[in-house]
């Protein structure tokens, strides 16, 4: 089967997706007609009733099948007058790849570039185009790499080996979106629950701005039945068109390499997975660090800080670029495994364009700082935008850690509260240790089967690491509440804590005094949990609060 025939078969399958409801209805009608002709009257009536009941979900399904509107991702529209250089570049690339340029450019908050089209007539006719560009992507790529990414996206519309393939890709996008839409509605309950749990996750918050009205019409059993039928057919169609779609991806890569150069294209493909992972990490560890403390990074830094982290962690990123995924992300993913795509590009002959446009793609924007600030306003939810901005990143870290330690609720806290029937404080824990009851307390912790069935020394050995960790955080919380802790912010590594006593000779953290204090701290915690426990060193490290002095001494 040639590529054209394959594409044609794919088109028939895609069209079938739209025709499925009609076919189902036709089958029901045929059954009714057959009953009229051949069956006795009593049975005819029953067949009619049954087919009517069955037709309801089918008809409902047809209405739900209507193409979900492209709501668009939240972002900032970049006008041509505001960003002349970016627009010129985008237009130039469109011309070079022989397709029409976008009608809109939208700056988004993720590591992604996409051209979307509000296709008409069930995805068969083209419509207005919109180019989405993620600010983090611009931050991480060079100008040449960005060209390669955009040229790849255009490549999908220029058709590579056959015009039909472009239609196939468009149809696949439509099906994928429709299936996603079905699931979204059918799973709305689950999604709501998840949204509640992930309240602090940055992505949810960013998405929150475009939160759709949840349509409860999609919750019923009949709806789910229809969703199952369409999903099954859609998956079949996606699977059958996979080879065409993957060939399309390779063709788009070739377009990108032709327009932006071989090396820039390969480098962009290598960079994107690494950038995605880095950005995920950045959101988790830096940008959203202060959300539990209701604090945002300094204005404009929610997206602006990513560049700093990338610079500081250049070495780590270099390692991630070399390990490429060799498996596709899902069986229906139109993208072939990244390792294979890079291999094919790098097999091209050298086009001597390795040194073109090495500058950061961010420089294409007229004022990256202003854009980052505007993007913050556009993608964060109103709830988050109401949070205060920290003065700087160090301030953000201090506030975040103080809040985290103040709100600590570990299994040890819960076990201690249960055991003593009193609020779980460091002092009540030290009292339990002094009374020799810490191992009885340990039995109330959530334990593995092996630990729970162990006795004597083996039991103590099993639970000691957990106890040490919990006790350490409890002591840190206590020190933090007294303002005795200092945190050191770093773009290159995890934040480090400075214990009291580590700053005796002037305050540089990496000297002997710092490690000394850390050793004293670890030793004091270990002594408190030894077989012959001694809480004195720990009490010496954490002077009791004034109101506690009387009860303890």
């Amino acid at each position, binding site marked *: 089967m040639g590529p054209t025939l394959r594409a044609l078969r794919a088109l028939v399958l895609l069209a079938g997706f739209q025709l499925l409801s009609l076919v189902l209805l036709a089958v029901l009608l045929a059954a009714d007609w057959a009953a009229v002709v051949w069956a006795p009257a009593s049975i005819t009536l029953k067949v009619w009733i049954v087919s009517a009941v069955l037709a309801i979900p089918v008809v409902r399904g047809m209405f739900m099948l209507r193409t979900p509107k492209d709501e668009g991702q939240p972002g900032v529209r970049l006008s041509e007058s505001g960003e002349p250089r970016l627009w010129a570049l985008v237009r130039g690339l469109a011309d070079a790849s022989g397709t029409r340029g976008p009608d809109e450019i939208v700056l988004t908050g993720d590591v992604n570039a996409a051209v979307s089209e509000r296709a008409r007539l069930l995805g068969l006719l083209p419509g207005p185009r919109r180019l989405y560009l993620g600010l983090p992507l611009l931050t991480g790529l060079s100008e040449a790499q960005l060209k390669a990414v955009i040229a790849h996206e255009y490549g999908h519309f220029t058709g590579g080996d056959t015009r039909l393939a472009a239609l196939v890709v468009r149809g696949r996008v439509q099906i994928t979106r429709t299936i996603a839409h079905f699931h979204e509605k059918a799973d709305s309950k689950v999604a709501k629950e998840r949204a509640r749990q992930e309240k602090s996750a940055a992505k949810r918050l960013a998405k929150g701005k475009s939160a759709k009205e949840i349509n409860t019409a999609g919750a019923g059993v009949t709806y789910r039945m229809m969703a199952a039928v369409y999903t099954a057919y859609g998956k079949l169609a996606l699977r059958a068109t996979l080879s065409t779609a993957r060939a399309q991806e390779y063709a788009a890569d070739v377009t990108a390499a032709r327009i932006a150069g071989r090396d820039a294209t390969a480098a962009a493909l290598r960079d994107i997975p690494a950038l995605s992972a880095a950005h995920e990490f950045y959101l988790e560890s830096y940008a959203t660090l202060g959300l539990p403390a209701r604090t945002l990074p300094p204005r404009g830094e929610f997206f602006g800080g990513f560049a700093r982290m990338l610079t500081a962690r250049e070495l780590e990123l270099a390692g991630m670029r070399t390990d490429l995924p060799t498996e596709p992300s899902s069986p229906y993913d139109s993208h072939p495994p990244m390792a294979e795509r890079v291999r094919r590009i790098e097999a091209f002959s050298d086009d001597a364009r390795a040194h073109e446009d090495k500058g950061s793609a961010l420089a294409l924007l007229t004022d990256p700082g202003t854009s980052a600030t505007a993007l913050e306003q556009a993608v964060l939810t109103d709830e988050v935008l109401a949070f205060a901005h920290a003065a700087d990143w160090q301030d953000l870290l201090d506030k975040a850690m103080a809040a985290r330690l103040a709100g600590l609720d570990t299994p040890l806290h819960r076990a201690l509260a249960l055991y003593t029937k009193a609020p779980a404080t460091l002092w009540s824990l030290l009292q339990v240790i002094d009374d020799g009851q810490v191992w009885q307390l340990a039995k109330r912790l959530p334990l593995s089967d*092996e630990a729970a069935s162990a*006795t*004597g*020394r*083996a039991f103590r050995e099993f639970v000691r*690491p957990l106890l040490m960790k919990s006790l350490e955080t409890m002591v840190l919380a206590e020190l933090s509440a007294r303002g005795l802790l200092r945190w050191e912010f770093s773009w290159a590594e995890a934040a480090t804590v400075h214990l009291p006593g580590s700053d005796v000779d002037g305050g540089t953290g990496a000297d002997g005094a710092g490690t000394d204090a850390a050793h004293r701290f670890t030793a004091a915690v270990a002594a408190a949990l030894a077989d012959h426990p001694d809480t004195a060193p720990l009490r010496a490290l954490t002077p009791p609060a004034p109101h506690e002095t009387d009860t303890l001494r």
Partner: protein
Amino acid sequence: MTVLLWILAVLAVPTLIFALWMAGVFLKEFFKSGDGGSEAAEKLGLLPAERQNTDLAAPLPAGWEAALSAARGGDWKPAAALLEYIGRDWERRSYATSLLGDIAAEEDAWLLAWEAARPDDPDAALIRARSTVDLAWNLRGAALAKHTTREQAEGFHRALARSREEIARAAALNPYDPTPFITEIWVALGLGYPHSEMDKLWAEITARAPYHYEAHYSALQYWCAKWRGSKELATAFAERAAATAPLGSLLTAFPLIAHFEHDESSDSTADRTPEMVARVDAGLADAATADPAHPRLPELRHLLAYYLALQDRDEAAIEQFKLVDGYVDALPWTYQGDGPDVAAYYCRIRNASAEAAAAQAQPS
């Protein structure tokens, strides 16, 4: 209809009688074979499975039990006195250490009291080191590595890492004693010392006790394919030990153990080769010359009894069985599972030998 029933009944009676007769013959045969062995064993004064001790390979030397139960009860002084009395008898010292270490790995309050009373006692330091190694293996459990949970593996490594300091301390407090180094072999096994480190450790041991049974036993485990070596390395190690040791040192046990550890066949062909017969003969000569009070002699006898039985040398096998009967916590039986399984396996092999020996004794 009635006629048909009558004909069927007439035909059924002889069939029924035949079936009953067959069942009777079968049952008689079945019980005879089962009973014959245990009867023969009983006639020889050997004990049934339920009366076999599955915690020890032989009775404890006089006075040891009191020291062990005192330690279990929290009193360290009898244990300290026992080790003092044993002195430089390294075979007994390592044996007593393993027994006391086991107890301290369960609960070490008595050992903490001992250490508090005599801070630099080399014996207490030795038990401390040994007990931490035992604790590590308790934490790990006996399952294969892939069935060991992460928590277990972490506890195992943590305790083994800690034990290295304690072993070094025990060795420093008693420089002539090979026992701390013998203990360290189990650390080498768990942490996977490289062969070069193991050879250095082995040099420390042989400089202090060249023909030590437990040292060889532990090192052979290290060299086995299932731990850090291979069948070839284990066999070479065992053969070299047996060849160079003076008669009576019991090291002839190790070629048998090396064979046993790597034998995956399901019949006894591999156990009846001329080479294996020669190994068993060497073991018999070794056992005959050894000090009858050697604490490890029963372990060699258990192995000899097993292989003599497999080689159909049943009278010789029974001779060994008689000498060790009553205590079955020894190779090869212990690889069959826990307590009752071990005793059952021991009795099965022993009874088969007893029956065969009885049949030979009274020619029909």
